[in-house]
């Protein structure tokens, strides 16, 4: 087994794939700082006052498919667009912890409102925060904070979704300006934004992936937006096309470096994940409140349905999913806030796990509500429609799974001396086909081979959870062995082996979520005593059981699987464009 010895501190999950548990990165479980708690309590109190009176409106706006300008105005007045802007520019200067929690609270009320605010701060203007020059910040921050300008993030195009490197929008230098031409699709806030972070090719037709980020404003001649899209969910949030027809952009509006736009886009998406993660937690908490009440109020067979095992099963699983997601998202926020540099894999894990846990919860609580759940009079169907997009946007969960495992496989691969030659270069090119992956996968690290075993155990866990710590240690060895085995098995062909790659990602997702939850429960027991943490210990019991069974199963499937048959059947269906066995 190999071990990383790079200069940069590797991410928690990268270390795990080498069999190393960097426990000080996750233990003790991070506590929200007192000043953040105070700020959040005030923000949440006000937010409730802002949103509660609109509860009926949210449903009406969903039906109408649009939010009235008066609501946007109210959000502006409230200061909702100022969350991550520095105090000196009239903003709230929120760190990831506070930002995530604020979006959590909004998501409890309405997905469309949360995404309107989230798209502005998480992605629309995040590039300005991360890469903006002082002059750019000076020019735009105050207007963005007051909501005078609302921001949108323009990457996707009709022919370019997951494969972001394939965009066709171009920007050509002309004196001290760039001339922008192209069309963007499904841009959140498109209809209400006047500040656009736009990605365009700046490297000529042949040079794939050479792109640059620009700040484009609505007042520049040649900028136009299409009509409001009619969507499955988030219906009241503005989604439109955005068009650029010979738009002249001052050279001073380049965001980050010319030619480094792909990296800018990926950094923005990474850094914005705490908002999406927060939203998933808010929805799950809301569903738990709705589902428990529904289960107690509804009587069948002479009893409240809450007394039936299969109803309890759904509620119990939701508790575990919600706690596990919260533990993971909070840990991610802590990484961001404490200046950890490498957290892209962990951020992707939080997005994938949170959006899927939320989706399960929507489905199960709708089931608890029965036919009522299917009625538009009740909130379940709307929550479910609104939730679905989270598995698609900001990187589909499929693409993110490939990203999660290929990122660490790249590091593991570099460390395997005997494989290093045969692997050389494989991540340089084909991976660009995966869009989001390339930037990370191209990283090269000097990793020596050799087995270092001193960091393979937990030493800081509370004895009450030590047994679960031992399980994580064991599964970590499985993970490292799996990474090693998959690479040896597929070598250079790993890029084409998506089944295997996904399997490794699933093991990593499970292990990170369990590690975060273990840390949280251990710290809770330390602080409050085991007697006051009985429910949290039960959550850990359930989650660790689930994870153990899933990881073992995924591990076994590396060698014992039906992958080739499944592919063959898919090919068969693709050829027929349908089903072959009708029985009449």
């Amino acid at each position: 087994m190999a071990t990383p010895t790079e200069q940069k501190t590797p991410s928690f999950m990268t270390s795990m794939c080498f069999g190393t548990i960097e426990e000080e990165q996750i233990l003790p479980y991070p506590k929200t700082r007192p000043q953040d708690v105070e700020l959040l309590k005030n923000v949440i109190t006000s937010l409730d006052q802002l949103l509660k009176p609109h509860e009926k409106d949210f449903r009406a706006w969903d039906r109408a498919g649009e939010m009235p300008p008066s609501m946007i105005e109210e959000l502006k007045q409230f200061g909702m667009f100022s969350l991550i802007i520095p105090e000196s520019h009239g903003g709230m200067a929120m760190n990831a912890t506070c930002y995530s929690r604020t979006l959590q609270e909004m998501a409890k009320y309405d997905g469309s409102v949360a995404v309107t605010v989230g798209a502005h701060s998480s992605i629309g203007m995040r590039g300005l925060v991360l890469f903006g020059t002082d002059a750019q910040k000076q020019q735009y921050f105050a207007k963005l904070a007051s909501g005078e300008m609302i921001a949108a993030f323009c990457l996707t195009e009709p022919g370019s979704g997951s494969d972001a490197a394939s965009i066709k929008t171009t920007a050509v230098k002309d004196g001290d300006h760039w001339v922008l031409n192209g069309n963007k699709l499904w841009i959140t806030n498109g209809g209400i934004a006047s500040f656009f972070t736009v990605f365009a090719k700046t490297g000529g037709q042949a040079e794939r992936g050479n792109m640059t980020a620009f700040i484009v404003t609505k007042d520049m001649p040649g900028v136009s937006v299409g009509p409001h899209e009619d969507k499955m969910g988030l219906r009241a949030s503005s989604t439109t096309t955005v068009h650029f027809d010979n738009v002249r952009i001052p050279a001073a509006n380049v965001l980050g470096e010319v030619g480094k736009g792909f990296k800018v886009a990926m950094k923005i998406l990474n850094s914005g994940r705490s908002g999406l993660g927060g939203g998933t937690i808010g929805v799950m908490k809301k569903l738990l409140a709705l589902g428990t009440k529904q289960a107690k109020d509804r009587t069948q067979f002479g009893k409240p349905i809450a007394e039936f095992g299969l109803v309890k099963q759904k509620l119990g699983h939701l508790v575990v999913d919600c706690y596990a997601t919260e533990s993971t998202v909070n840990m991610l926020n802590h990484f961001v806030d404490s200046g950890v540099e490498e957290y892209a894999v962990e951020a992707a894990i939080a997005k994938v796990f949170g959006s899927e846990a939320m989706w399960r919860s929507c489905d199960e609580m709708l089931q608890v509500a029965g036919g009522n759940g299917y009625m538009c009079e009740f909130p379940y169907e709307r929550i479910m429609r609104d939730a679905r997009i989270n598995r698609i946007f900001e990187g589909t969960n499929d693409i993110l799974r490939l990203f999660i495992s290929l990122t660490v496989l790249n590091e593991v691969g570099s460390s395997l001396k005997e494989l290093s030659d045969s692997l050389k270069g494989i991540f340089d090119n084909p991976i660009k086909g995966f869009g989001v992956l390339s930037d990370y996968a191209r990283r090269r690290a000097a990793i020596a081979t050799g087995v270092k075993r001193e960091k393979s155990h937990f030493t800081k866990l509370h004895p009450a959870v030590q047994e679960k710590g031992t399980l994580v240690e064991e599964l970590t060895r499985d993970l490292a062995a799996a990474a090693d085995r998959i690479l040896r098995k597929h070598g250079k062909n790993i890029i084409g082996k998506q089944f295997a790659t996904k399997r490794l990602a699933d093991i990593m997702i499970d292990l990170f979520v369990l590690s975060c939850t273990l840390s949280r429960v251990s710290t809770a027991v330390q602080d409050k005593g085991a007697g006051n943490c009985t429910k949290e210990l039960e959550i850990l019991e359930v989650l660790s059981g689930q994870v153990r069974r899933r990881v073992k199963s995924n591990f076994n499937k590396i060698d014992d699987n039906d992958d080739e048959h499944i592919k063959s059947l898919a090919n068969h269906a693709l050829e027929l464009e349908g089903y072959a066995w009708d029985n009449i």
Partner: protein
Amino acid sequence: MKILVTAKRVEDPESKIKVKPDGSGIVPEGLKYKINPFDEIAVEEALRLSAAHTGDVVVVSIGTKDVHEQLRHALAMGATKAVWVNHTGALDQLAIARLLQKVVEKEKPDLVILGKQSIDDDQNQVGQYLAEFLGWSQATFASKVEALDSDAEKNKQPGLKLTADKKGLTVVREVDGGLSTLECSLPAVVTTDLRLNQPRYASLPGIMKAKSKPIEELTPAALAVDVAPKLTVTKLSSPPARKAGIKVADVPALVEKLKNEAKAF
């Protein structure tokens, strides 16, 4: 015009409130807290008056450091400064009124506005005691003629009106079966009823501004008030759970049940 208002920390009525098994209090876990809704109306009224007549709004709360949350909220709504009377443990209404009296004597406002009662203990005493101790005029249960969806309310006009000579206050009070209007001289103590106004929410910029506004700390000892309670709460208990209802087949069956089981007539 300087106005002093109170902001008591109370349990949010929307959180699930459970009495401890031994009846010594309520279970604190999982509870949310907020400004007593009547006090929030007082803060709002003070802000409207001070906006109309220029002046400061001082907000007072008594309790542990936890009350900073409510003080900050009032500051974020727009109050100028806060006074925190640091005290741990139970207080009765008399002690609270004595503490407020001392704070008022220190701050010398022209007007004190408090909630008519707090939604946790529902005592409805402090405002009246305070006016008595100060020897000021008092007007309780302040309301207003305009409805809560009127233009006056939308334009955030105060319901309490200064008299032409600015030496008095016109207060519309809610009484059984109607409204009574009275005029009192300043300084005065006013307590608020529910229909006086619709409190604003604190905007995010307001919350940021509140961070740097001062919170002055005082203690009962520094104010020379003996807060030993003359009234103690000995036990709390939940109201008995309601029994489930039943469905009856028709009206005669209902009459029969009402007569023979409920003994309603």
